[in-house]
């Protein structure tokens, strides 16, 4: 902007702002308030950290995904994947009713999860662009290809099982869907963890185990809900495996990640997760006690399905909360820097 004749007279971009006194920056205290920075019993989960933010605005942009579509997609993917395993096993061990129910459930859940994914797109008509490339760096790309392979297989397996036609093709499709099922149930953990959302990213080592556990719980619930008690031994065992894996992995994650785990026990996310735990417990006990009672068995199955859904909704909303509140982005990063660098001096060399 300086005219040529004035060049060198005014400093322009070389202007020196001023001589600061070198006083250290005042850091705001981490805000207190409802439930923040402490457990319900008042014991702090982590020591209060000091942090500064820009008008308390979030640092990252939170996901624009709708909870019905994407939390539903996480839940239904888990249900479908684990149900395919249950269906294949039931067929192999001569439990036709359990096999039919599981295969039909797997296909239905697969279709619905795909529908959720498409519905959530800003441009649903461009869904096929998902199959334009294959990228291992994008769990959503991997997942789209997985579902594109899995859903037709689950469909053929279910159709053959329900109609009794084309048993060989049905067998092959059952095997194929059982092979892809575990991947369908687990990749969604990488999908949410591969973001800058603190509660999701920090939990990445345990999240796949939470997800397969939750998927197994839902598939077991479906079997208990819709198949006769005489064929449901494996469903009851799978419920034990699912609830156990999910709760153990979740507990481990919460303890390990510290402060970023707060949204998992607070607010909307925390509420869903508590409901999930209660329903899991009730469903599991009911399933084991109601071994010969069709009604109790079915109710327990419904509770287990609801538990799995509540867990996914809880994780989804806890993630949103951790993205919206800047402290979950800033404080852990600041602590990482403090741990890596000497405590005094804020100017970089």
């Amino acid at each position, binding site marked *: *902007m300086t005219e040529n004749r004035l060049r060198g007279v005014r400093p*322009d971009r070389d*202007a*020196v702002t*001023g*001589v*600061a006194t*070198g006083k250290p*920056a005042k850091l705001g205290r981490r805000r207190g308030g409802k439930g923040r920075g402490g457990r319900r019993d008042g014991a702090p989960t982590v020591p209060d950290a000091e942090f*500064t*933010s*820009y008008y308390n*605005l*979030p*640092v*990252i*942009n939170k996901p*624009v995904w709708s909870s019905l579509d994407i939390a539903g997609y996480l839940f239904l993917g888990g249900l479908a994947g684990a149900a395919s395993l249950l269906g294949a096993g039931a067929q192999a061990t001569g439990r036709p009713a359990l096999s039919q129910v599981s295969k039909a459930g797997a296909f239905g859940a697969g279709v619905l999860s795909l529908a959720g994914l498409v519905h959530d797109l*800003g*441009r649903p008509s*461009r869904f*096929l*662009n*998902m*199959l*334009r*490339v*294959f*990228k*291992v*760096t994008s*769990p*959503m*790309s991997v997942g789209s290809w997985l579902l594109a392979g899995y859903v037709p297989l689950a469909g053929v397996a279910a159709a053959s099982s329900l109609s009794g036609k084309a048993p060989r093709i049905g067998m092959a499709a059952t095997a194929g869907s059982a092979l892809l099922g575990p991947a369908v*149930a*687990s990749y969604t*953990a*990488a999908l949410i*963890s591969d*973001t*800058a959302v603190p509660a999701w*990213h920090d939990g990445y*080592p345990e*999240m*796949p185990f939470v*997800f*397969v556990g939750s998927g197994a719980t839902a598939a*077991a619930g479906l079997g208990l809900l819709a198949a006769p008690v005489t064929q449901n*031994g*494996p*469903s009851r*065992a*799978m419920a034990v495996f*699912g609830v156990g894996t999910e709760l153990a992995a979740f507990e481990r994650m919460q303890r390990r990640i510290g402060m970023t785990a707060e949204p998992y026990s607070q607010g909307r996310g925390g509420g869903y997760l508590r409901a999930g735990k209660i329903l899991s417990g009730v469903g599991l006990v009911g399933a084991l006690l109601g*071994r010969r009672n069709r009604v109790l068995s079915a109710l327990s199955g419904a509770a287990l399905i609801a538990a799995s859904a509540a867990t996914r909704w809880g994780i989804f909303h806890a993630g949103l909360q951790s993205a919206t509140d800047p402290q979950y982005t*800033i404080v852990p*990063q*600041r602590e990482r820097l403090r741990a890596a660098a000497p405590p005094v001096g804020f*100017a*970089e060399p």
Partner: protein
Amino acid sequence: MAPVDIQIGRGPNLDGALLGDTDPATQGGYPDHPPRMGFFTDTSVCIGCKACEVACKTWNAIPEDGLVFTGMSMDNSQGLGASTWRHVAFIEQRKPVAAQDPGVVHDQNVLELAGNPTAPGTNGDFRWLMASDVCKHCTHAACLDVCPTGSLFRTEFGTVVVQEDICNGCGYCIPACPYGVIDQRKEDGRAWKCTLCYDRLSVGQEPACAKACPTDSIQFGPLDELRERADARLARLHEAGVADARLYGRDPQDGVGGDGAFFLLLDEPEVYGLPPDPVVTTRDLPSMWKHVTVAAATLVGGALAAFVAGRRL
């Protein structure tokens, strides 16, 4: 349908693609490319005029992004988003700005005439920080890594651009960005962000914001040149006693492999709404896939065990 383009990472070497100091254009498949271009935003000379915001909006034909009064100093655009690709942050602080050198000679000391109410060290301590934020065009860009359609791509200039005719609005890039840059335009469904004026760069022009900046707070050029210039500027400010000055996003060894658009700040990054130690989320993706594989195997094992135990249960 066109043949499927198999992309494994962004190059043959996945490790190099996810970590450390690399040349992003080469990683992106341009063996012969122009130098990496970027921004050096020197906030110490920003005057908060918002010419960059306006120039960006005008050149890129960006729709209105909400006409609200926030009360956050002079900042009403609040942050980067789908329709805000340059954002000027304003921070008012009770800190001394100390002796300011306007570069012109005064015959009279007007401050003394006014009773000197804002002299340094008194209760009148006040400084106003202004900083123009923009997409960082990371060396390791999470938005680009996670995009499932290939809509986000690396240009020959090493920048990151969304192809709006490909984007299907899945929204994955939005929470992937560690800086909160890219966002969805609600009325249109797709994700939008700064292109570093790819159209202007392609014909040898500088980006609109840098062109419009009256104080050269936004400097555009080859990244290695900007880094040298920034180092010299930082040394000059430190020499002058501005101990608060620091570079942000300059270091190619940081969590995103260095930013294509980096900054000189006068306070901690979080004061300006920037993450203090951002890390590209895909750095952990190899480990995530390993855990997913083990979990999938655990599910198979659990199901097999369920059929063994299920005979008795």
